[in-house]
């Protein structure tokens, strides 16, 4: 498992001991703002990737920007690594601490500082929950568009770190498309303003670079987000298919027809049956796959598009096409999709959610290959996709209490990600690399590309203190991993287990 920091392949890691951390940091923080007891730190030992656990050296809970600056300056002086954490819902171990590091929690930065209805913006602290922004501006007829499935709990700072997407990003964009400016504290405590109140900024686009940088370049302390007018109506179509590949073909036809759905989701047989048992969404349990296609906008246009897409789906081979009759049925159709992950509990004691993106045209081939890889590893897989943007979430079913099952799940996950790279896709669409996919980075990027990532990081963080061991692998790690793997898709027998 990757929750052990390995000095040999992750690089050197400064450790100064709890006593010195306490002596240095406690005076910089409010009362109770530094936690070093095991009981106090246990809630911070893992994030949304709960299989990985590790305790930090200390947990810092600053309340003001000067306190964040002071903690970063002190850690720089001590040479101690810092792992920033929002709500801890990330799925790739990006907020996983390592022994000796300082876990910097931004949870107390939980205020919406300003809502400007005229400018359609909100200035928020990083610990504000994603959904709380939309709730706060709903009565103005506005919303914050990115809607990761964890939006009830995840924080906007974490969304910036991961460049979070969501079901509706096909039409409304990712986090990077919905923010205007960031306040960032560098590792040496400098306060920077990136982006602007306007729609661009002079110089290099550092706001865009910061977005999705997973806590490796700086600590975000304020975000100016863009708000979007709520659409007049939203309606959803449920289409059933007897064949997964036919469903995949229908997705391509919708996209080629010039329709931009607000969401276009696909579930295969095992996933839709588990979701139906869990949420009673009204899915046809005998189907091999279903598509959910949501269209929103002006009422008459949505009515016209619903008719056009329904017709297109029938011609593309759907066995049944149903339009949600009312808002209650629309919510029910989505409840099944949103409950797909917890529904996996009915199929197996544990599931491991994978997150790759592929060009849509590769979908039939990748589905077939995933089935073959799953058989070779002796594990089941249920597939949930953000089909409109080619983002796959195969859910690997396993039982962590069975000897070797966890390792098999991890190996199967890695093989699926490498398959995504092989067909021209990527190892992560929205969950981030974090700790989880650090090895697969060696497959997606060449040594020179990976060196460039390290050089970019060093421009912000020369001592390598911000979230080390995550996101960009060291040369030593790739050399070790590469000894087992051939680079860039030239895997001779991808169906064989390699551990």
């Amino acid at each position: 498992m990757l929750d052990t920091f390995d000095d040999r392949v992750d690089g050197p890691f400064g450790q100064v001991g709890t006593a010195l951390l306490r002596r240095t940091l406690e005076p910089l923080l409010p009362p109770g703002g530094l936690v070093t007891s095991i009981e106090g730190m246990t809630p911070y030992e893992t994030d949304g990737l709960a299989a990985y656990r590790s305790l930090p050296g200390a947990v810092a809970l600053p309340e003001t920007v000067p306190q964040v600056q002071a903690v970063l300056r002190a850690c720089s002086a001590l040479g101690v690594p810092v792992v920033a954490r929002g709500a801890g819902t990330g799925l790739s171990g990006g907020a996983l601490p390592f022994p000796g590091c300082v876990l910097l929690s931004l949870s107390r930065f939980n205020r919406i500082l300003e809502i400007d209805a005229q400018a359609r913006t909100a200035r928020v602290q990083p610990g504000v929950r994603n959904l709380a922004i939309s709730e706060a501006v709903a009565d103005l007829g506005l919303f914050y568009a990115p809607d990761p499935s964890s939006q009830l709990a995840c924080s906007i700072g974490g969304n910036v770190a991961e460049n979070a997407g969501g079901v509706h990003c096909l039409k409304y964009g990712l986090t990077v498309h919905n923010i205007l400016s960031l306040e960032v504290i560098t590792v040496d405590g400098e306060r920077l303003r990136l982006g602007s109140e306007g729609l661009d900024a002079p110089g290099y686009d550092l706001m865009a670079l910061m977005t999705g940088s997973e806590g490796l370049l700086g600590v975000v302390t304020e975000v100016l987000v863009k708000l979007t007018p709520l659409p007049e109506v939203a309606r959803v179509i449920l289409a059933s298919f007897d064949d997964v590949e036919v469903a995949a073909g229908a997705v391509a036809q919708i996209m080629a027809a010039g329709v931009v759905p607000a969401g276009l989701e696909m579930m295969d047989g095992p996933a839709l049956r588990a979701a139906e048992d869990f949420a009673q969404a009204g899915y046809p349990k005998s189907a091999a796959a279903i598509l959910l296609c949501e269209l929103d906008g002006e009422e008459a246009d949505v009515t016209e598009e619903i008719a056009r897409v329904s017709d297109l789906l029938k011609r593309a081979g759907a066995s049944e096409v149903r339009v949600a009759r009312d808002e209650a049925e629309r919510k029910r159709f989505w409840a099944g999709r949103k409950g797909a992950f917890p529904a996996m509990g009915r199929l197996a004691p544990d599931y491991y959610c994978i997150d790759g993106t592929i060009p849509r045209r590769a979908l039939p081939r990748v589905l077939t290959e995933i089935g073959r890889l799953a058989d070779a590893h002796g594990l089941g897989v249920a597939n949930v996709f953000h089909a409109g943007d080619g983002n796959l979430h195969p859910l690997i079913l396993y039982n962590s209490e069975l000897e070797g099952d966890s390792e098999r799940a991890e190996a199967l996950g890695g093989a699926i990600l490498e398959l995504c790279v092989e067909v021209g896709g990527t190892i992560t669409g929205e969950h981030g690399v974090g700790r989880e996919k650090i090895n697969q980075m060696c497959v997606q990027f060449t040594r020179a590309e990976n060196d460039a990532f390290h050089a970019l990081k060093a421009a912000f963080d020369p001592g390598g203190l911000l979230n080390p061991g995550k996101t960009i692998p060291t040369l030593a790690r790739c050399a070790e991993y590469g000894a087992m793997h051939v680079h860039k898709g030239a895997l001779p027998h991808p169906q064989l287990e390699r551990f």
Partner: protein
Amino acid sequence: MDQTPALTEAVQAAAATHRPLRLVGGGTHEFYGRPVEGKTLSIAGHKGIIDYDPSELVITARAGTRLSEIEAVLMENQQMLAFEPPKFGPAATLGGAVATGLSGPRRPFAGALRDFVLGARILDGRGQALHFGGTVFKNVAGFDAFRLMAGAQGGLGLILDISLRVTPRPRLELALAFDLDSETARLKVIDLMRRPLPVSGAFHDGAQLHLRLSGGDAAVSSTARELGGEPEHLDVWGNLGNLTHPALSEGDCLWRISMAQTRTAPEDWGPVWDWAGGVRWVRQAADAPDLWDAAADLGGHATLFRGSRDKVFQPLAPAVLDLHKRLKAAMDPHGILNPGRLYEGL
């Protein structure tokens, strides 16, 4: 035609001798930046569309490919570049568009060029070919170095190939003109933007407000009925984006001030704006005082679009400029790629 080997050789030779290169595509955006002293390296011959599958909504092409060629191919498939890159001449290239990072009138409604870049293959300052991003919309592996190429003017890497997300053309598009003064028009547009209306352009030429509507038939028709105004030809929008509109083509100096659309500009900046009020275009005589501080006071930034060549872009905060220099050194350690194009010493 793929000229990667020749371009690689040229960059490696320059790196070996520490001799700066002046990177040129179609040469149409030359005014947009400080002059570069160096050996001219033309990228215009490295051209051609590499991959385009309309159902993937992605086009990948070499940097020297002309924008007009890309837009024609997209048009055949009822698709477009939603950020409307300005073309300051027929020779404008894809690489030049990405390097300058400029977006047209649709920017406030559809997003910036940077938002549509999915991947880039570049040569860094050592002459190494690096590929960042890819051809898929959702991709968070590694830093988004491909987005960093947008607007970096080649200073962080010579752009070889670019993958862009493309957008279906709207089913209906029309243009309207209104006899409203600049301030009344700006406030009206701000009000309109609080509603989910199919607006895709809003600019004031000093005399009239011009609106463009794009989207489904019903939404565009009903909005046009509600707003009234005089129908006009859509050409006005092309002229605006390419700066050939009369409101922009006169005067010794042309300043572009980018700021929040809700900020009130000083009266002496004149009445002309685009981007729904988020960009003010200010024409001045050559000897008029500069606008750097005035722009910054309003939370915005200025660009000297036409006029002096020494200082073109808003000065950066010292800490931010230092960071720029470190990033430049990371990607181009010998400082050979378009040095000084954005700022002196960068």
